[in-house]
């Protein structure tokens, strides 16, 4: 059972981090990526904040998720996310001083990040600890990948102009189009993988 579990966890992690990355494939937590991800600095801060916030919430609801009745669970998840935001912000502040202030509105709005909320509401209560851990880390890595890529591209594009965060490519429209092309690339990769596994007798 040990080897089977390790392989299953690797698959869950890879799916959440790359092949079925929730941000481009399911459009969860699109707002931070397209609105806040206009510089690499922002991107790194937000991915760290996402990590520090999603891990505790994921574990909490992996343990007690079952006990809370279904209709009140969303409220509990948001409350937990709000409570865990404070230590997460403090941790981020200690790692990168001045980060929370620099994030402005984007930081607090990570509390109601649709990716964290939906994972905690649906995925965490019904899966075992290992799977939840792999999935949460996978989502954190996947989110970091997407937002850092977007931030890097926009930072590069805007490196010339003086009012970097003002207009032009830092606006959400470029984020949406960029994530759209990213989603198309992922869909192309997944299509090629299913074709290849289809041809090779279905072994992944």
């Amino acid at each position: 059972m040990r080897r089977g579990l390790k392989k299953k966890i690797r698959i869950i992690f890879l799916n959440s981090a790359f092949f079925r990355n929730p941000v481009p494939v399911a459009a969860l937590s699109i707002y931070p990526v397209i609105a806040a991800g206009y510089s690499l600095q922002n991107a790194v801060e937000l991915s760290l904040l996402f990590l520090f916030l999603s891990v505790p919430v994921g574990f909490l609801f992996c343990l007690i998720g079952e006990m809370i009745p279904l209709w009140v669970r969303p409220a509990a998840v948001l409350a937990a996310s709000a409570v865990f935001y404070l230590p997460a912000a403090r941790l981020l502040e200690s790692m990168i001083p001045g980060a929370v202030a620099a994030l402005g509105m984007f930081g607090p709005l990570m509390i109601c990040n649709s990716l964290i909320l939906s994972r905690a509401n649906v995925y965490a209560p019904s899966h075992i600890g290992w799977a939840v851990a792999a999935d949460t880390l996978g989502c954190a890595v996947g989110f970091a990948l997407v937002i850092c890529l977007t931030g890097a591209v926009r930072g590069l594009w805007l490196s010339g102009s003086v009012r970097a965060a003002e207009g032009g490519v830092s606006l959400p429209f470029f984020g949406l189009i960029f994530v759209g092309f990213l989603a198309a690339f992922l869909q192309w990769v997944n299509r090629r993988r299913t074709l290849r596994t289809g041809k090779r007798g279905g072994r992944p």
Partner: protein
Amino acid sequence: MNLTEMKPPFIRGETSVASMMRDMLFALTLLLALPVVRYGPRPAVAAALTVLVCVLCELLFTLMQTKTTGLSDGSAAVTGMVVALLLPVNAPLWLPCAAGAFAIAAAKAPFGSTGRNPFNPAAAGLAFAAVCWPQLVFSYAATGSGPLPLFGDCAVQTAPSPAAVLKQGLPPNILPFEMLWGNFAGPAGATAVLVVAACGLYLFCKRVAQWEITACFLLVVIVIAALFPRAVFDPLSSVKYELLSGSVLFCSVFMVTDPVTSPHTTAARCVYGLLSGALVMAFRWFGAYEQGAVFAVLLSNAAAPVLDDLVFRFRGWGGELADA
């Protein structure tokens, strides 16, 4: 005598998509004549380059598509020409090419070319250029600056266009009658008002464009310009300035009437014309840029399918949406 099998009908009407695009291209190249005469061959070079880039982007995407509808319908060339004609003459050459590349690569090809794009590609390309490089897109060469260098950057004395002056609420310092001849600072193709009107008539007679959209569009622009003049002058001259300045006339003939992105039923087309006219004036009043027409075209393109479905539901033909 070996005979081939074929399905009826065996004869077709003479207008095909290719012939419609050829008529559009003919009208657009007519519009290039005036800037070439006034500013030298630079606008023609810019237009050719933009068309080349658009066609290359379209080729790149046809390799990815399974059912290649092919390039021969010339709509990429039309998009390139429209983009080149709405940018200033003294714009650096990479600007129209970047706008054209965005138009095809982001606004047209991903949705399936020609018949499937939800937005007018030229409008999307120009909006992208306007948002990313506003200082380049809205700096028009002064009229008397003579032939421009062919390829290099032209350091030319720029003048504010009547639309910019109107935006600050001051009456432009040029008489509407002189504006008819088009020698004032403005986009390459949109200043020659008489030529645009002539091309419009040509397209309506050849049934390439639908006149009812343009009629409703201009009607609303005139009504709003008369009711809410943007500078302190009488309604009539306000209407004249609003129509002649900026690219309202050009958009009303070439961009709003694009059959793919406008509604398909006649009733919905009239409402679409009214809506885009109102949006153009809204962008001129509240917008951030002096040229609001391209953004208005994009917004009304988004509303086109909704208008079509409303008309079908109103006529009791089952316009309701099934759950996706």
